[in-house]
């Protein structure tokens, strides 16, 4: 029951600068953690971490994850969730490979197919969620089941694309002159970047611009923050939600194609648990599942942090596979608790987290 007057008094008056918004604060924490982690790894283990190629390989191997995590960030900002992204990725890889090899398809055609599948999923899921108001979890769960099931219907065995143009595209590497490492024989090996990384970076920048400087982006934050007041402001809440799922579907299609460009194989087990990794990346990057707060740059760093921690775990000699998911879990715990604490302090309800005897005496007890 704080009045407006009280709220006004709580704003610190001595600082002339604006307060950092929640979005930016969480973003800064994520970037600092990532940089700190990487520098620490370089100092302690050196070796691979100093090699620029290993840093670029994080991008090479996870370009698809960056793309789908961007889509998920958009949906999460609007207050929804989409767990069908991994399934769509697998379906796109499989259909594209079958189209390229068995039906004599062209690269352009397969790309169109990938985008079409993504848009189709986004369209149906978006209509069901925003216009029929069915819970997003159920709809996208069914979407995931459907996509995974269809992947095995299209082909039960893993397939590898052998169409020439596609293989040439897949093996194309952008060579960075001047950045690289010295091989054992003392020869200079320049760093190589895959095509998918360019796509991923372009997607991140595009979504960043979309969220920051367009009406759709603004509406998205408003809808996620408080859909009631967004409605009062005259924002078309349903259409905004619908577009967010459409965009996420489209990005899953692109993500699927990027995955295919990296591995060149269609397989039902492609991108297993990618949806959870994407959600985890978005959370580490400072996106709140409650909606209204988030940033794709943070998501990018979320993916990088998630993968760097796996590299560190391997480098520190814990080679058994279970350590990776345990450390990922620990890292998630850390970031989730951090977010919760930061936001609680911001909203001045941090004191409530403390036991009663630790709270200051003055002030009301909520």
């Amino acid at each position: 029951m704080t009045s407006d007057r009280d709220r006004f008094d709580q704003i610190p008056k001595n600082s002339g600068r604006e307060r950092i918004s929640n979005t930016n604060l969480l973003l800064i924490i994520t970037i600092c953690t990532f940089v700190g982690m990487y520098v620490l790894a370089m100092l302690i283990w050196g070796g691979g971490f100093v090699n620029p190629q290993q840093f670029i390989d994080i991008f090479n191997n996870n370009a698809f994850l960056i793309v789908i995590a961007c889509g998920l960030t958009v949906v999460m900002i609007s207050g929804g969730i989409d767990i069908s992204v991994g399934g769509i990725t697998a379906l796109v890889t499989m259909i594209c490979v079958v189209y390229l090899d068995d039906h004599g398809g062209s690269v352009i055609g397969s790309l169109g197919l990938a985008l079409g599948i993504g848009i189709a999923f986004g369209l149906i899921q978006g209509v069901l969620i925003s216009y029929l108001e069915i819970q997003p979890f159920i709809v996208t769960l069914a979407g995931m089941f459907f996509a995974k099931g269809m992947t095995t219907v299209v082909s039960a065995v893993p397939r590898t694309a052998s169409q020439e143009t596609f293989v040439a595209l897949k093996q194309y590497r952008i060579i960075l002159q001047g950045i690289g490492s010295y091989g054992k024989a003392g020869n200079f090996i320049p760093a190589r970047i895959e095509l998918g990384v360019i796509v991923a970076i372009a997607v991140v920048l595009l979504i960043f611009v979309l969220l920051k400087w367009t009406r759709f982006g603004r509406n998205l934050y408003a809808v996620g923050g408080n859909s009631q007041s967004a409605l009062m402001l005259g924002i078309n809440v349903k259409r905004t939600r619908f577009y967010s799922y459409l965009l996420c579907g489209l990005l899953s299609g692109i993500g699927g194609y990027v995955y295919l460009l990296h591995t060149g194989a269609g397989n039902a087990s492609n991108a297993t648990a990618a949806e959870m990794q994407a959600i985890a990346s978005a959370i580490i990057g400072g996106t709140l599942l409650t909606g209204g707060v988030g940033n794709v740059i943070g998501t990018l760093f979320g993916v990088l942090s998630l993968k760097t921690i796996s590299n560190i775990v391997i480098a520190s000699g814990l080679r058994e596979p279970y350590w990776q998911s345990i450390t990922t879990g620990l890292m998630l715990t850390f970031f989730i608790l951090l977010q919760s604490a930061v936001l609680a302090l911001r909203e001045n309800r941090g004191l409530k987290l403390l036991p009663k005897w630790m709270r200051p005496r003055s002030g009301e007890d909520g």
Partner: protein
Amino acid sequence: MDNAFKKFTRSPLVVPLFALLLIIVFNLIRDVGFFELTVTTNNIGNTVLSGNIISILNGASELAILAIGMTLVTASSKGQDISVGAAAAIAGSVFVRVLRENEITMPVILIAFLASCVVAMIFGAFNGTLVAVFRIQPMIATLILFTAGRSIAYWINGGATPTVESPLLGNIGSFIPGIPIPTPILIVIVFSVLVALILRFTNLGLYTQAVGINEKSARLNGINTVLMKILSFMLLGVCSAIAGAINVSRIGLINHETLLMDIEMDAILAVAIGGNALSGGKFSLAGSVIGAYVIQALTITLYAMKVPSTAVKACKAVVIIAIVVIGSPIVKAYAIELRNRLFQKSVNVTES
């Protein structure tokens, strides 16, 4: 009569019962003998019942138990626990570990089960604390255990997939000599009755709903909302432990990677099909249990139709979407409006 019908169509059980009826009718049209029960003698000489009904009821046991816990968590915390499969894997691993280090007798099985319950409750309390004290969205809070859980299960048994064999475990997993009904079905019945009695004779159900409907007013009325949420997560932990123990006894080994894989998704679906709002508040346990049987009946039907096991997921997805679209309030309102308009038109025609 008309009133009773209206009352029935407004009850939350109408969606799951309608779905179940649809599947039954579909099966009867497809194959009249689908629900035939036969009495056979199994390999250890028991007279047992077998047939599609039994395999549906038997196969859905773990799901039904988890759906009960999931309903309570959904009601109190307005979110879902996606770590139940991982928690069941951890509990199952503890169960197997205790069994393997001792001679398997009935008391040892009981101790092993209690140990797995305690471990699962600790993990449930962890999830519950994140949700209730730190106010993290349940799906995000349980994402931690979802990612790390199966690895913890792997670590408990030192990375192996050990087998446990004992006729006593066979009794739990399949049949008790002399009783023709599979034991998991009996466990589900006993457990549901127990939970129903607890909800009936204590304030647990009322308080859980109060917390889910309006947390603030529940607190102002003197309900410890934090405790209620943690309690519901711990109860789900117990459910995971039971499901894990049943599954281990059924197959006689533990594979932490595949044990009850993807069951969290099915459990949430069972809650939704059962007519419960995933946004918390009022709940109906019976609906969730029926929802679990709907899912299993659907799976068995698809298998019986010779749908390849890999495509079952896709078919399931289509059916689920159909069920939730029919059950969605918007579609219902639209249908009622359409009916009214048609009705009005016919009235107008007769008037003119």
